[in-house]
């Protein structure tokens, strides 16, 4: 049963699962970097995006890719609205206060989606069937898994290009580093913050659109990926995008290794043990720079 021969397969599966976590981690890190908010509503916003995509496919008769793009557009609007209506209105928010606001948002989104579509699981059929696989050197790679990895890689690359090579990305980085000065330099920081939330919602939504076809679409679908994504973000350092991606991959792989070789029962807890060890050695995460607190 235990065989080192299965190791490549386990590693690949871990990487695929980790790609989804990485996407959520990226979304959370983007928001945290710029607005210092831990967005606990990330998972359920992604869930809602998936439901909307499903609605476009079923009721609107659109093909998957079209429906997915429309759903991501919806996600952008949702993220922007959330920032505009909720986060911006908070007066003198404390860290905890902001967390509670995002939790409240999460409940509203969850309630809304459950009310509209009900609690029964639904199917999301995409052009990639579960049996579409490519076998490379003994490792069976399903096309859905490859798609997850590809999407994650694409998003990371696109983010790097965007943040480092485009004006909007420059504006985002400036806002993150020093908000008042960025404002003085003529950057419309409020618009940037709205854009950040929209971007994060789109990235999170893409994670949801990857989980939906692999499992079922139901209100609780993103709870577990969301927690793992959050853990991945912390593991990588809440301010580093590369860290978020790396964190996601590590958690996915560690989880699957533990699940296969040791026990599936405690699979969900092991990533946190890893994080604890990591944080004991380097408290600010893997790739973040340790900012010394000014008194």
């Amino acid at each position, binding site marked *: *049963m*235990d*065989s080192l021969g*299965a190791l490549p*397969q*386990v590693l690949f*599966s*871990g990487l*695929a*699962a980790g790609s989804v976590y990485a996407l959520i981690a990226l979304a959370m890190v983007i928001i945290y970097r710029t607005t210092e908010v831990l967005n606990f509503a990330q998972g359920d916003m992604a869930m809602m995006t998936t439901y909307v995509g499903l609605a476009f496919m079923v009721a609107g008769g659109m093909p998957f890719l079209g429906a997915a793009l429309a759903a991501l557009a919806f996600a952008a609007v949702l993220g922007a609205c959330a920032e505009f209506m909720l986060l911006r209105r908070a007066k003198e928010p404390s860290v905890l206060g902001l967390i509670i606001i995002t939790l409240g948002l999460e409940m509203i989104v969850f309630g809304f989606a*459950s009310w509209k579509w*009900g*609690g*029964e*699981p*639904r*199917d999301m*059929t995409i052009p990639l*069937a*579960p*049996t*579409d*696989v490519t076998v490379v050197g003994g490792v*069976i790679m*399903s096309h*859905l*898994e490859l798609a997850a990895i590809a999407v994650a890689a694409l998003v990371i690359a696109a983010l790097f290009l965007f943040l480092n090579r485009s004006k909007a990305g420059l504006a985002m980085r400036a806002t993150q580093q020093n908000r008042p000065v960025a404002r003085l330099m003529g950057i419309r920081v409020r618009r940037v913050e709205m854009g950040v939330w929209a971007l994060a919602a789109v990235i999170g939504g893409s994670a949801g659109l990857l*989980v939906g076809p*692999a*499992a*079922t679409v*139901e*209100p*609780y*679908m993103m*709870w*577990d*990926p969301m927690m793992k994504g959050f853990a991945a973000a912390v593991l990588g350092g809440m301010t580093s995008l590369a860290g978020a991606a790396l964190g996601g991959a590590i958690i*996915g792989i560690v*989880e*699957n*290794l*533990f*699940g*296969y070789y040791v*026990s*599936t*029962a405690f*699979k*969900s807890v092991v990533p946190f043990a890893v994080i604890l060890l990591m944080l004991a050695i380097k408290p600010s995460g893997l790739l973040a720079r340790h900012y010394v607190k000014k008194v």
Partner: protein
Amino acid sequence: MLDKFRNAAAALATGLLCFAAPAQAQPAALAGVTDTEIHIGQWGPQTGPAAAWGSVARGTAMLFQMVNDAGGIHGRKIVYHMFDDQYNPARTIAGVKELVEKSPGIFGFASGVGTSPGLAVKDYLMERGIPWVGPAAGSLHWITPPQKALFALYPLYADEAKLLVRHLVEKEGKKKIAILYASDEYGENGHRGAVAEMQRFGLAPAVEVAVNQADRDLKSHVLKLKESGADAVLMWVNPTHAVITLKTAAALQFAPQWAASSTLSDVPLMQTITGGLWKNIIFASFSELPDADLPEVKKYRDAFPKYAQQGERWGVFFMAGIGFVEPMVEGLRRAGRNLTRESFIAAMESIRGYKGLMGKVSFGPGERQGQREIFLARTDDSGTRVTQLTPWAEVK
């Protein structure tokens, strides 16, 4: 100085006044029954992680509406009190206590999803002698020890597991059976029953894999199943996990004989959400199949469009809400116009071989497990047609 004391005195007086509320009205001598009404309650997860099972309580609503429309029971209509407990025992207790203690009280409880919520209220109900029929969970807790007012219907999960294993070994000739089970009471019950039955045949499970409720990534689970070389896999999980398992297995080119518990017996649902992978699955069932051509099923299926809420689906859980409560309605009928708790219990005990949507139900003095029979069925290659493999039979 005087001011301070005056303020303090006013504060104290208002404080004490707040608590001078009148005492609660005590329920009538025969709670829940008036000349024209019988009050029956049910808890259910209308929201929360188990919301898919919320249709059980709604099925009971349809049954009671049909009974009322047909004239009620001996001139009394059933007033149905359904509340959402989110599968959270704290809420179940609150809801049950509220219904029981507020006038006009509750005569009895019907069904009710979940072992934990049910266990939380069991002692409270039994201490007061409040009848409870058909808990929607196949747990041993309802009948060990048997309670005077608790009439269980759902066949035991362990019995289902036994029957499935027996069929796999004897009829399908499988020797390496693996078990995939949920980490909760439901999964563990099935797990234990399966292992016990395998031991009877001198076999050991190829591998036993536990699944957590929130897990969405089951790749390591399926890999373990595959690497164990199992030729059959028992699935004791919820529908979403079954879907993920089948899809992952299809990708990993692992194709054992799948055997599923009764919670996965809703074939149309499973066929849809697995995207067509629900082929050649052997499953256990405690109720007639949703699209069966039998009169007792058609009676409700034909009435469904008229009574059901928009968005409801005619599936196994909805039917369970009807099937687990039919014996209670029968008991109410047999108790006659002079309805008391004792007459109801005596009436329930007199039920022998009652057949409704589920299997045959029989109670008796001291016998509180009403239904013991289940049957096995198998989906065909298209995943839509179902052939019955074994007749309705008790598991010995």
